[in-house]
């Protein structure tokens, strides 16, 4: 046995880590027994409906909730915003009604009398001049490095372009909400949350409770994407009404309110000048961008623009726009998808201007990135998978068949993914059973499965032998699942605790069976000496821990190499554009993604493929549409808020890039990165197919047709 240092096994010794393991909670999800927040239905539960404001900007001048209280079945009314409150966006919560049935709650909402003084609104997020005229812009931010003007004079090729990407929402298929219930004066909140350990205090303060009297539970969550870190005003409303009525209360946002008020990803629009020298090396970048994140008026982070690439001569400036639209929340890889789409489309246009193959051009400029070697390997692999060499043609020069043209595009991205602070308790019972306990959550990352794999690998047991308890704030604290921090966050502490436990067991086995502890290893349910001779079974070894068994705490992150941060990743898209209708059809999308050491290859690839369909969504169809006349979010339903369906995504290929050099880096988070460059890759593929740039995402048929017309192609 190797000396006792905290580390992952040498790659070749793993039995389970890095293989394709099925989700250990998959049976519950496939059979309908997995309980999400809205599925909690304890005796006497009251149901809620919401009154929201229909104006983009208004002042509440009258609010009478008494009629609601008189409706049969209504048990409580909660006021979010009373008379004199200023409403800043369509969909702002005014009141909630809790009743015996959903219909009674709706009757209660309908009985509320509310009046507003309507105020002027502004919701136009892509017209910078209009925003300036309306006094809706924030203080510009800018920075300069090198000498852009001088570089532009030396340039062989230059492109001046306009690029943009509209606001989208998180659109979690399970809306935000909770089921709140008091037992004596203790609150149990089944909250749909990415932040099990961090939300009890958010309930406690406003409710006047000790945080120790609040338990947050989230066994399953139907999507979060960065929007579910808080108890939120609707969670507090449910808890307050539960306290007031002495009854359990379930309050889930309806779909329209979910889309309007529970978070969104800010828009970004940019004017870019980019230039290269004769051999295709980019020598200058000049950009001004704007966009909105709602009433606060922030925009996409100027400090990360241009994205992935940075250039010696670079000017950048940004202006935020204050709009009467719902406020932003962190959306999977905050800032990155917009910045990527506004950077790498301009780069692709410059490649076309130079008459270069886009892949050659991006490869040529990898020196302007921080991970040139990784991107090069990933681009070359992705090119093989999509058949780049055989299918490539100059922009707009491909063969047209029946009015349709095909094209290829690419993009690349980066992300951090450092493990969050987390702890766990690993228990080994005298009968050999093993469990891990952590106040973490599974937002689709496969948290339970990852923990089970780490312990099974360490103890030489099958994955099924490990019981994983997560999803309750009563368990050891774990960080929120945001920023691709969870898999690293839980795997480090569990590996550390498991190794410490294993070493204690080895010492007990050595004493009992008179063998050298340094020769012991755990494999196949047995403790082996020198890797081959069975000393005892795992159960016999566990029995040596005494009647109380063994309990070890694990913490992280530590600087012991189990986890690290910093990933790359590339994607390529093949599309077919109908030049008559403007419809873009996905043919194939390829992702090659690194994330250090991969615990479960199956769930890792699953994350990548899931991200790709979100990327296809915002590239082609998904968009919050604000009506300038009324100031309202007019497509806040799943009919008109267009997400791709199963026939719209084409073939998806996800391949993990994990040479030994990546394995050696330890575990790095994966959730965000694969959603980042889809927009750029698909936009570039459309430009390659048509020979024109569709400047703004999503590339709806109208925008495609407008671009074709502007480019003289239609």
């Amino acid at each position: 046995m190797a000396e006792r240092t905290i580390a992952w096994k040498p790659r070749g010794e793993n039995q389970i880590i890095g293989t394709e393991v099925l989700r250990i909670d998959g049976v519950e999800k496939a059979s309908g027994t997995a309980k999400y927040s809205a599925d909690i239905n304890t005796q006497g539960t009251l149901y809620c409906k919401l009154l929201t404001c229909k104006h983009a900007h208004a002042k509440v001048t009258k609010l009478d909730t008494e009629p609601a209280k008189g409706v049969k079945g209504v048990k409580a009314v909660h006021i979010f915003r009373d008379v004199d409150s200023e409403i800043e966006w369509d969909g702002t919560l005014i009141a909630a009604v809790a009743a015996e049935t959903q219909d009674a709650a709706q009757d209660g909402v309908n009985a509320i009398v509310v009046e507003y003084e309507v105020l002027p609104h502004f919701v136009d997020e892509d017209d910078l001049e209009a925003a300036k005229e309306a006094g809706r812009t924030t203080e510009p931010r800018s920075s300069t490095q090198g000498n852009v003007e001088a570089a532009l004079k030396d340039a062989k090729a230059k492109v001046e372009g306009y690029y943009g990407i509209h606001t989208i929402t998180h659109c979690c298929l399970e809306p935000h909400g909770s089921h709140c219930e008091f037992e004596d004066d203790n609150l149990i909140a089944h909250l749909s949350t990415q932040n099990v350990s961090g939300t009890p205090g958010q309930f406690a303060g406003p409710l006047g409770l000790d945080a120790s009297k609040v338990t947050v539970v989230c066994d399953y969550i139907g999507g979060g994407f960065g929007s579910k870190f808080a108890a939120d005003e609707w969670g507090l409303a449910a808890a307050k009404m539960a306290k007031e009525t002495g009854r359990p209360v379930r309050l889930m946002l309806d779909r329209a309110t979910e889309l309007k008020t529970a978070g969104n990803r800010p828009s970004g629009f940019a004017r870019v000048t980019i230039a290269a020298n004769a051999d295709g090396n980019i020598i200058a970048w000049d950009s001004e961008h704007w966009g909105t994140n709602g009433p606060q008026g922030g925009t996409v982070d100027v400090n990360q623009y241009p994205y992935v690439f940075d250039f010696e001569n670079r000017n950048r400036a940004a202006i935020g726009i204050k709009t009467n639209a719902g406020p932003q929340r962190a959306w999977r890889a905050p800032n990155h998808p917009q910045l990527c789409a506004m950077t790498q489309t301009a780069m692709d246009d410059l490649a076309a201007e130079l008459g270069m193959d886009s892949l050659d051009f991006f490869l040529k400029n990898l020196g302007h990135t921080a991970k040139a070697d990784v991107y090069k390997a990933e681009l070359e692999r992705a090119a093989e998978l999509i058949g780049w060499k055989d299918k490539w043609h100059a922009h707009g020069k491909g063969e047209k068949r029946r009015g349709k043209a095909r094209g290829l595009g690419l993009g690349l991205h980066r992300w951090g993914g450092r493990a969050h602070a987390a702890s766990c308790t690993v228990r080994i019972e005298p009968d050999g059973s093993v469990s891990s306990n952590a106040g973490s959550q599974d937002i689709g990352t496969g948290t339970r499965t990852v923990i089970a794999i780490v312990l099974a690998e360490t103890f030489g047991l099958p994955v099924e032998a490990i019981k994983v308890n997560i999803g309750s704030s009563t368990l050891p604290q774990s960080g929120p699942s945001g920023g691709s921090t969870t898999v690293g966050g839980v795997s480090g502490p569990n590996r550390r605790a498991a190794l410490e436990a294993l070493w204690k067991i080895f010492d007990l086995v050595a004493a009992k069976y008179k063998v050298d502890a340094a020769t012991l290893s755990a494999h196949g349910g047995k403790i082996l000496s020198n890797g081959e001779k069975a000393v005892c079974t795992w159960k016999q070894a566990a029995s040596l821990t005494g009647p109380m068994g063994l309990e070890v705490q694990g913490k992280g992150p530590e600087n012991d190499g189990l986890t690290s941060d910093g990933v790359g990743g590339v994607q390529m898209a093949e599309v077919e554009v109908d030049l008559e209708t403007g419809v873009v059809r996905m043919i194939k999308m390829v992702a090659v993604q690194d994330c250090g050491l991969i615990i479960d290859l199956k769930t890792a690839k699953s994350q990548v493929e899931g991200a790709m369909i979100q990327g296809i969504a915002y590239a082609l169809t998904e968009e919050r549409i604000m009506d300038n006349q009324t100031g309202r979010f007019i497509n806040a339903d799943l009919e008109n808020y267009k997400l791709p369906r199963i026939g719209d995504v084409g073939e998806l290929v996800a391949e993990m890039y994990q040479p030994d050099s990546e394995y050696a880096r330890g575990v790095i988070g994966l959730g965000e990165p694969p959603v980042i460059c889809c927009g750029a890759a698909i936009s570039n593929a459309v430009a390659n197919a048509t020979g024109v740039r569709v400047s703004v995402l999503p590339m709806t048929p109208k925008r495609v047709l407008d671009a074709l017309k502007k480019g003289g192609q239609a």
Partner: protein
Amino acid sequence: MARKRIVTTTINGRKNEFLCEPRQTLLEVLRDVLDLTGTKEGCSNGNCGACTVLLDGRAVDSCLVLAVEVDGAEVETIEGVAPVEGLDPIQHAFLEQAALQCGICTPGFIMSAKALLAENPQPSEAEIRFSLAGNLCRCTGYDKIVRAVQQAAETRVAHR
């Protein structure tokens, strides 16, 4: 408010009687009255398919069906798909193909797939994509769902 009605129906093979208001949806009664919460609510207007159940063998969005409409009908929900022990081949295929992630859309997809395979035991890929177009997935990635339905179809044929 209209008087409550008694509805007699068969749910997952068992006779069932429940009381409901005429305006209550099947989805609401399944979840809130009968505690069959495997059927999920995603949009309440028939666009996401998370609430798909089988009504006399046909896949329907239970948010668009009034509970009183199922009087005398047979309803199957996700809770009735698995045999007494183990899983249905469709459920097993969803697991094996990683065709579920957060899991909130999964019951709806499985019910739609079940209706498809009952009618068309060996569907083409295009037929699968057409038949499941009423179900939205936000995070899993659709390709794997297609593979899962293909695997389920093959397994079912092999077991005949």
